[in-house]
């Protein structure tokens, strides 16, 4: 039994919700890299993680989405790569207290390989450094999320697998008429097959559109490979009301989509942008009711 299958032995797991919006509620300013709070405000970061564990998350992530070497060096923070990633894992593990698994979050570099603004070997090194720092700090698994370029995901996956940890790769399907393509045009089938072949432990979809768009994507990921599927949906599309950003979807509406997603094979279910601990509470309630 693989590590991941043993975690899933008793059925699908509820993951967590958004971190960025929660940190903003606690005073994170616009344009400030959320990951820096691992060092400057570890207590506030821990309170977000703890709120998810309290709400019923069985897997929580880490506040390390942007802590790859390329993004950090652009922000002048490369020297803190090891510290940001290590403290990110430590904070989530403290909050989990053994009640939840900690999957460490790794986001894309934000650079495009095909325009030549970064080289493949730079991307590989950037992810390898982050993955090894996260693994050394004791993450249970690594999550490559919000990917849009299959090639970048493949490079990141190869680098992450060297830690020996299970690696999940999740894409943002936010383009195309049916919101079933990544920005770079990849379909769920292309992403699932490429990641299975390259050794991922699970594939998934996160961010992108509201939860109502995720069912067909989940079904297609499931059909295209033999891996468990990871789903983290947004709370609908953001709207601007009187200068403030709001998300139209309620926790109840969000959770009402859970049974169909679980039915169609989602093994991990949680929320992305705009979701809060209330959404996770509603998901957990929905799951125990079913």
């Amino acid at each position, binding site marked *: 039994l693989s590590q991941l299958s043993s975690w899933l032995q008793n059925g699908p797991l509820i993951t967590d919700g958004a971190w960025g919006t929660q940190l903003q509620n606690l005073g994170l300013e*616009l344009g400030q890299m959320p990951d820096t709070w691992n060092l400057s405000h570890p207590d506030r970061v821990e309170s977000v993680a703890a709120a998810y564990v309290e709400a019923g998350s069985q897997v929580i992530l880490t506040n390390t989405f942007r802590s790859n070497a390329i993004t950090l060096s652009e922000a002048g923070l490369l020297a803190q790569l090891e510290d940001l990633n290590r403290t990110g894992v430590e904070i989530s593990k403290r909050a989990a207290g053994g009640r939840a698994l900690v999957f460490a979050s790794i986001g894309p570099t934000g650079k*495009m390989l095909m325009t030549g603004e970064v080289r493949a070997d730079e991307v590989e090194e950037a992810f390898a450094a982050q993955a090894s720092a996260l693994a050394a700090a004791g993450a249970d698994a690594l999550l490559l999320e919000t990917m849009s370029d299959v090639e970048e995901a493949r490079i990141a996956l190869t680098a992450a697998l060297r830690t020996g940890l299970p690696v999940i790769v999740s894409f943002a399907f936010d383009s*195309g008429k049916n919101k079933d*393509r990544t920005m770079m045009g990849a379909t769920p089938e292309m992403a699932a097959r490429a990641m299975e072949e390259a050794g991922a432990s699970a594939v998934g979809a996160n961010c992108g559109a509201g939860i109502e768009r995720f069912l067909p994507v989940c079904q297609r990921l499931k059909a295209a490979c033999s891996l468990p599927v990871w789903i983290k949906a947004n709370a609908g599309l953001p709207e601007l009301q009187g*200068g403030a950003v709001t998300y139209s979807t309620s926790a109840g509406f969000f959770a009402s989509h859970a049974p169909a997603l679980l039915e169609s094979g989602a093994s991990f279910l949680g929320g992305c942008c705009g979701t809060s601990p209330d959404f996770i509470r509603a998901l957990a309630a929905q799951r125990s009711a079913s």
Partner: protein
Amino acid sequence: MPDLQKLYDAVLDGDQKTSVAVTQEALAAQIDPLELITKYMVPAMDEVGRRFECEDYFVPELLLSARAMKGCLELLRLLLAAQGSQPVARVAIGTVKGDLHDIGKNLVGSLLEGGGFEVFDLGADVAPEKFIQAIRDKGVTLVALSALLTVTMPSMRTTIDALKQAGVRDQVKIMVGGAPVTQQFADEIGADGYSDNASAAVALARRLSALEVAS
């Protein structure tokens, strides 16, 4: 006489090597550079845009075609300058203050260059003052603002307000775009135009520049 249909096809297919080779042959055969642009390259990019809208093409195809077109334009630039042709317009592009995302902005920048614009890329997390400076120092007539995050959209309004304060708002047309941006938001903050994708942004930039010249 070179087969110029090949130029159209090469730009459409994002084949820079062939598009540059055909352009070189055409120049050797004394064909007018402007004709190459208006009859073959621009129609090819229009078709690229159409296919992008129909979702036959995605970002990679857009980039490859823009790169092919840019390669040809570089060959033609000196000749066009000698003829007295100006770039379509000078554009200052940037992701607004507070927002560090630059993929969408880079993409629109590349496509604008492919479309014959002179592009000043101010980067990401750009303070309003930098846009003002570009308008004053670079002869920019078009400002393109990008935001990827809903939470940084208000920075677009701040930027436009700062341009007004500085008294340079009326010297330029302003276009906005990015995942969370909508036409309604663009109208609300007093932008001149909005497009919901990178390809349409080039058409919008052309339209706004034509207005600029006409006004």
